[in-house]
């Protein structure tokens, strides 16, 4: 496994929910690393622990065992406040489904990131417009999520994920609400952004058609990464 000071390293990651007889091991002893500029897909059936793994990588969940190192920092034992700061400064999330704030316009949804970091400025606003332009939804900047198509919504969500110029971009089932053509377009532009901006990209998906856009695929089943394969 290649070591990269700036990349992501997952080491013996395990997540157990519950305790005693009802304990469920969602993720078992998973280790892998991702370099900057690399776009990796995690595939597997539902219930295989993909989303739990993603949540641990992004500092949303604390691992029961093992550690996560992102850009040289071990985040696995950080407090909720430290992890919140990590998320708003270094992580870009694209959640599954309708994940935009419904009462904010597309542009305002991107402005959520500088707003929660206390960094609202004309510069940030300019960056939001620039991202919407790159993603081809600048004409929809002042529309509410409810007025956007599924593909447009997903593009706005990607714009939001890139807004804080994160090191790590985490994507959960980006195509679940899109037809395959739209899904392809969206994942393609996501892959381009990750390459161009030298991010660490990790996508959880069950849609194998999307794997043409990624550099590497991790197969997950029963909480374990089965066979890291190269494409």
């Amino acid at each position, binding site marked *: 496994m290649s070591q990269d000071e700036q990349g992501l390293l997952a080491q013996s990651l395990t997540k157990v929910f519950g305790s005693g007889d009802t304990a469920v091991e969602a993720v078992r002893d998973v280790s892998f690393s991702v370099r900057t500029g690399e776009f990796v897909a995690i595939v597997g059936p539902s219930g295989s622990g993909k989303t739990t793994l993603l949540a641990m990588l992004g500092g949303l969940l604390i691992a029961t065992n093992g550690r996560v190192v992102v850009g040289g920092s071990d985040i696995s034992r950080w407090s909720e406040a430290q992890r919140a700061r990590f998320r708003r400064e270094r992580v870009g999330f694209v*959640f599954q489904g309708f994940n935009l704030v419904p009462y904010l316009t597309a542009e305002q949804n991107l*402005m959520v990131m500088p707003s929660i970091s206390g960094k609202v400025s004309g510069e940030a606003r300019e960056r939001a417009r620039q991202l919407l332009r790159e993603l081809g939804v600048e004409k929809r900047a002042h529309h509410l999520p409810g007025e956007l198509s599924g593909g447009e919504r997903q593009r706005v969500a990607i714009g939001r994920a890139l807004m804080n110029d994160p090191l790590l971009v985490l994507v959960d089932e980006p195509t679940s609400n899109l037809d395959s053509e739209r899904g392809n377009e969206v994942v393609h532009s996501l892959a381009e952004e990750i390459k161009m901006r030298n991010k660490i990209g990790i996508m959880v998906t069950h849609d194998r058609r999307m794997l043409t856009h990624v550099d590497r695929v991790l197969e997950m089943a029963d909480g374990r990464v089965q066979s890291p394969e190269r494409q």
Partner: protein
Amino acid sequence: MLALQEIRRKKLQFGLISLIVGLVVYLLVMISALGSGLLSAMSGAVNSFDADLVVFSADSNDSFLRSELTASQRDAIAEVGGATGGIGYMAATAQEDSLTEDVALFGFEPGSIAEPAVRSGRALAREGEILIDRGLSRSSGLKVGDQITMRNALIAYNFTIVGEVDEGQFLGLPSAYVLLDKWREMRYPGQGEDAPAASVILARGHADDLGARIEAAVPNTSVLSKSEAISAIGGVTEQERVVMAIEFFGFVIGALVIGSFFFVLTMQRAYEIAIFKALGASSWYVFGQLICQVAAVALAGLALGVPLALVTEAALPSDIPLQITTSAFLTGGASITIAALLGSLFSARQVVRVNPMSALGQV
């Protein structure tokens, strides 16, 4: 400001909450105003006395109705120091054509601190003249220049109204003012110089111990501060307690209503809060947004409730004892601030509890 964007997009929801807050403000201001109105009906005329202290006779149990001070006591009180003035009180019936109305008739020592300020017309110059309170002229239609008969038991006295004062009511009766000597003649008919000189003596002075010095120097006197004298009026203390209890319940219920509205509002937004937290917003940030919204709603509620109270005051007939005072607004405003704060504290717990994982569709 993202928090205000939400209000903009959810006009109906926030509008309704503002309406509720506004109605609670209205309720609290009105209760407070009715309380002060009631208090003023009982003791407004006493509160209008331009005095710090009221000297009663010691055996009167500090009652304006029973207190009687002799001429020598009056002179002795004046010698102790400070400004003083005699006040006489009696209940009388005002009659004019078809009008019959009970009034609180006060006699005052002309030129002393006991003399009420004349708002229209002129001051009393002779014994056959009388000043009436604005409340009386409003309720009875009497005006400056009218002739009026004041009846005490079987004896009637004729007066000419020469001026109006704005002193308020006493024991629920509108007040009227005559010269102290005339009062003495009416209150104690046929007793001449043996009659008591006044019911009470008002005193005003900078010295803190003026009251104690009067009590020490003049036998058979009891000195109360003006507010103590008001509380000593029969029923006033009980009435104040009742009004305070009503205000307290109104406040508690209002606070609970407003608090639970914000609570429900926060609960409904658990998913949106989860998105914010998953993206890395601190609980403080989310709570700060909530405080912004609470402040906006509280302001909107005040902007609604206060004018509503003022309109009601103007629309209600004058015989309803309603007195909107600054303290009524302060009570309303402070209650809403506290209620909103309590409501957001409930919500703060919820904000902390929202699990950001729920934004991923998990948990």
